[in-house]
């Protein structure tokens, strides 16, 4: 009981101890740069970045290199398609919450078609008939509702995030198809294996780019932070761009001018 009560205080203490000191406002360039970084928890974030980096170098990366040796590009594409398909119901719900009816429809069609014709999602026939994947998640739904990203967070194991996008973790967990049926050992094993395989698969695809960033960046931590934010902004833009509404054939068409 005592432990239960003290742990949150200890964590709070660690967070506060890890707050960065902003430069004085009189130093305009430094102050603006600090504001732009929007990373007040930087000291704590950097600790987690180092921990993840050590884990990655010693566990995930060697596994990914071994995995790359025994798999082909085609195989890895199918693993990726399978994981994408499992995420489709969550995307459907998020697109509905965002009010993006066209994209919600696409997510539904993709899930139905790829789960059946695509043999459980191993193949992606939906893309070839004009229903390509558009990514979304609860963080992007909140962004669509006008919630700001908040300070940057580097999460242990999970990596780059921010206060808004961190809400994604519990939501995503609830919205996977494996969360729907009653819990069973078989299902848990499947779920963990799928997550593990998907993780290794993704890491394998990123072997080149991540090595390159670590090799060429002066401050890899800041580089990953910038890449994360730009990538999220671009996903948000893509959702807006792809949600093109058209009038159905059966609906009275507007008069031609």
């Amino acid at each position, binding site marked *: 009981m005592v432990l239960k009560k003290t742990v949150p205080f200890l964590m709070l203490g660690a967070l506060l101890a890890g707050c960065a000191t902003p430069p004085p406002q009189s130093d305009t360039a430094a102050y603006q*740069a600090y504001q*732009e970084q929007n990373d007040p928890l930087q000291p704590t974030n950097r600790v987690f970045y180092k921990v993840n980096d050590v884990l990655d170098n010693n566990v995930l990366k060697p596994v990914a290199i071994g995995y790359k040796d025994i798999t082909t*590009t085609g195989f890895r594409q199918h693993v990726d398609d399978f994981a994408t398909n499992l995420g489709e119901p969550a995307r459907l719900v998020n697109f509905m919450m965002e009010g993006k009816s066209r994209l919600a429809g696409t997510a539904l069609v993709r899930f139905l078609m790829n789960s059946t014709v695509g043999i459980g999602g191993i193949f992606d026939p939906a893309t070839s008939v004009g229903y390509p994947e558009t990514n979304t998640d609860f963080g992007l739904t909140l962004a669509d509702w006008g919630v700001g990203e908040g300070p940057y967070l580097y999460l242990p194991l999970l990596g780059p995030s921010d206060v808004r996008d961190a809400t994604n973790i519990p939501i995503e967990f609830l919205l996977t198809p494996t969360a729907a049926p009653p819990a069973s050992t078989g299902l848990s094993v499947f779920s963990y294996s799928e997550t593990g395989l998907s993780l290794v698969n993704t890491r394998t695809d990123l072997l080149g780019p991540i090595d390159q960033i670590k090799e*060429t960046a002066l401050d890899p931590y800041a580089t990953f932070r910038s890449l994360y934010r730009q*990538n999220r902004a671009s996903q948000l833009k893509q959702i807006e761009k792809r949600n093109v509404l058209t009038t159905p054939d059966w609906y009275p068409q507007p008069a031609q001018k």
Partner: protein
Amino acid sequence: MANTPRRVMLGALALLPALALAPLARADVSTSAASAFITQAGNQLLGVINGPDSTAQKAAALRGIVENIVAVDQVGQFVLGRYTNVATPAQKTEYMQLFHDLLAYNITAQIRADKGITFKVNNAQAQPGGTVIVDTTVNRPSAAPTDVGWVVQDVSGSPKIVDVVVEGTSLRVTERSDYASVIVSNGGQVSALLAAMQKQVAHVKSLSQ
């Protein structure tokens, strides 16, 4: 004498159309010219990469091409960002020198590693600010195809690459936050950035030998 402010006002008003026209005077790159430029530049690069020369010869040739097709000074200026106003003239000169070196080494190190690259120009779109983004698909052996956007701008009369965009992430924006972070972590000192760049140049040089 009472007329003086009015005269100044009228004079200023007379200048307005000239100011409005000033941006138009700059030659914007046409989408077709940008596509043609990227096709030519890409073929030039691939000719060297897939060619028979030794690694050292290839690196030298690639560096020459990169200096020719990339607006290195403009990119360097953008990456230094607001610290242009903080850096001393000597620091700026040193920065540009180091930036040229780093960019050349980074680009050539990436490209040299991959033999058998092919690329296809998909389309070109004019962007606000007089730039054109040329979308291409780059195919490398043993990797999924990547969509790469090349931002082309007219620099003193000829088209040059000013940015590379992959999956919605811009290379120069990423680099700017990387460099700014080094300066911020070192109490706003531009000299810290120069030291880090020197270290990096020495590091990549040792790798490429």
